């Protein structure tokens, strides 16, 4: 299955609303082992000017990952999942994600470059609250190796 030729510039539908809870933020903070009080202590978060506890800086991947997964599973895109490697990731933060946020991500393809049998697909996932407030933009490059014989 070849990669769609017109991928660059395409934008995909928003991901379903994702509710961010205090427990999820705490579980993510536990997983990376941080003891930053902003992730668990409501008083500390409020004292720092946040309405609720905030998520670690790489937490936006949880929402961006849903957008990337839907994109890669789209039959019109022509990606074979087992041929994909996540080759880079970058976050630009508008404001920290916090408990109570309801988020969606819109993924688009910025460019596709061919290099030695591999397509480097540069994606951008813009993460906003369902009210339209910008939260984070997540940039990822997916390296898609051409299937054998293609």
């Amino acid at each position: 299955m070849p990669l769609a030729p017109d991928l660059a510039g395409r934008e995909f539908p928003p991901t379903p609303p994702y509710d961010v809870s205090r427990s999820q933020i705490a579980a993510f903070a536990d997983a990376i082992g941080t003891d930053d009080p902003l992730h668990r202590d409501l008083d500390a978060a409020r004292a720092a000017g946040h309405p609720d506890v905030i998520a670690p800086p790489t937490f936006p991947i949880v929402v961006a990952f849903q957008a990337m997964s839907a994109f890669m599973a789209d039959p019109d895109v022509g990606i074979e999942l087992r041929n994909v490697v996540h080759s880079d990731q970058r976050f630009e933060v508008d404001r920290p994600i916090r408990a109570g946020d309801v988020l969606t991500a819109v993924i688009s393809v910025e460019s596709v470059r061919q290099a030695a049998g591999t397509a480097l697909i540069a994606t951008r996932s813009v993460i906003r609250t369902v009210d339209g407030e910008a939260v984070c933009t997540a940039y990822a490059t997916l390296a898609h190796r051409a299937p054998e014989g293609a």
Partner: protein
Amino acid sequence: MARLKPGVSLGPAHFRVRRSDLVRYAGASGDFNPIHWSQRVATEVGLPGVIAHGMYTLGLAGRAVAEWAGGADRVIELGSRFTKPVAVPDDESGVVVEVSGEVKPTDTAGRVRIDLTVTCGDQKVLGMARAVVASDD
């Protein structure tokens, strides 16, 4: 919290990574790709064994950056290439990821860049790893 004047060196911070950490991260992040927990699948696709999620390693780097910057809310940008896989053996000692940083100036007042070096053993595992953080220095 560290002083974040350009030219300052930060760390190194050390993080021990075991298989159980990868399982915990899979659950917390929703990334259940079996190459991060199944030896069979990992070796079938040509990996040296179970490897850490690239985003787990970047998460550890983000943890170090947040500690240096004085809180997770001071991280404005964070990113890297996933250059080399971090293979995690199925034993109690796991592997150790080391994160160090160099503070660089930016064109924006109140912000500095931190260029990160992230290694496991003698291998650089993240490439072009850098963060932009708020700084009062």
